[in-house]
């Protein structure tokens, strides 16, 4: 994966496959501690303790199309390459929280990338799910809340209408320093 926004897209796909109806994505940095942290939280089916333990192992997958799962191991690798780590907190029947921590200034830390494109893809592909996004990077805060957007649209347009998706893309284009 080229950048963190692609890893995030991939980790959120796990949550959609786990039957989540609400998925939260938070990205924040702590300049004093030189940390960048990504949290992805869902209310899907969760995992039991044995599964959480095994999930960082690429040979652990519940998919039937292939015998290895790569999504989580790849994100863990990206975090570890910067001296950071990956934490998975999950409970069967409740949901899952994946927290990746990076040393922000590390030479191998991948750029955040295009979160606008990731959110656009997620909302486009999963119009029935709710997403809550908040990031605070380089002093710029961005928030996207599909429950709020849906409420404002009031059923007159679907949330996956290209006009709405483009508003979301534009929000990121205007408010991201590159």
């Amino acid at each position, binding site marked *: 994966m080229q950048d963190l926004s*692609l890893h995030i897209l991939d980790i959120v796909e796990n949550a959609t496959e786990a039957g989540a109806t609400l998925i939260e994505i938070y990205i924040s940095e702590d300049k004093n501690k030189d940390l960048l942290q990504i949290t992805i939280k869902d209310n899907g089916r969760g995992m039991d303790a044995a599964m959480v333990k095994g999930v960082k192992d690429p040979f652990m997958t519940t998919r039937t199309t292939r015998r290895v799962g790569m999504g989580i191991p790849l994100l863990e690798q990206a975090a570890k390459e910067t001296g950071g780590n990956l934490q998975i907190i999950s409970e069967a029947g409740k949901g899952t929280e994946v927290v990746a921590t990076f040393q922000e200034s590390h030479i191998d830390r991948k750029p955040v990338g295009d979160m606008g494109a990731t959110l656009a893809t997620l909302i*486009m592909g999963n119009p029935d799910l709710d997403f809550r996004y908040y990031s605070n990077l380089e002093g710029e*805060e961005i928030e996207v809340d599909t429950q709020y957007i849906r409420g404002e649209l009031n059923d*007159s347009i679907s949330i996956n*209408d*290209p006009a709405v998706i483009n*508003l979301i893309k534009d929000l990121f284009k205007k408010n991201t320093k590159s």
Partner: protein
Amino acid sequence: MAKLKIEDLKRIKESMKGTVNLRQGEYRVKITVHMGTCGIAAGARTIMSTLLGKIENSGANDIILTSSGCAGLCNHEPMITLEVKESAPVKYIKLDPEKAGRIFDEHALEGNPVADYALSVGSETTY
């Protein structure tokens, strides 16, 4: 804090007045982009953006674009499945924006599958 403005949402609501609200299920063409780890690493998100742009530019309101998990054919990614209602779905493999654009023009808009990029015709449904 940057977030979507109520005025912007109102504005697009206004601009949509009188047009048909496309609901899930009432479509002529459904395009599914496969979003497993391999697909994403191979460029599936760019394919999604390309197709979104094509839908917008064509003004088509009977084509839906969605995503699904891995199709289990990692070395063929990025992949899409295109389904014209009442016809067998077609899987397209090893895509790039140019190929995806051509598939959109020829298959989604004109109804002619693009054999050059297709994996197989028939046998599978999308989900």
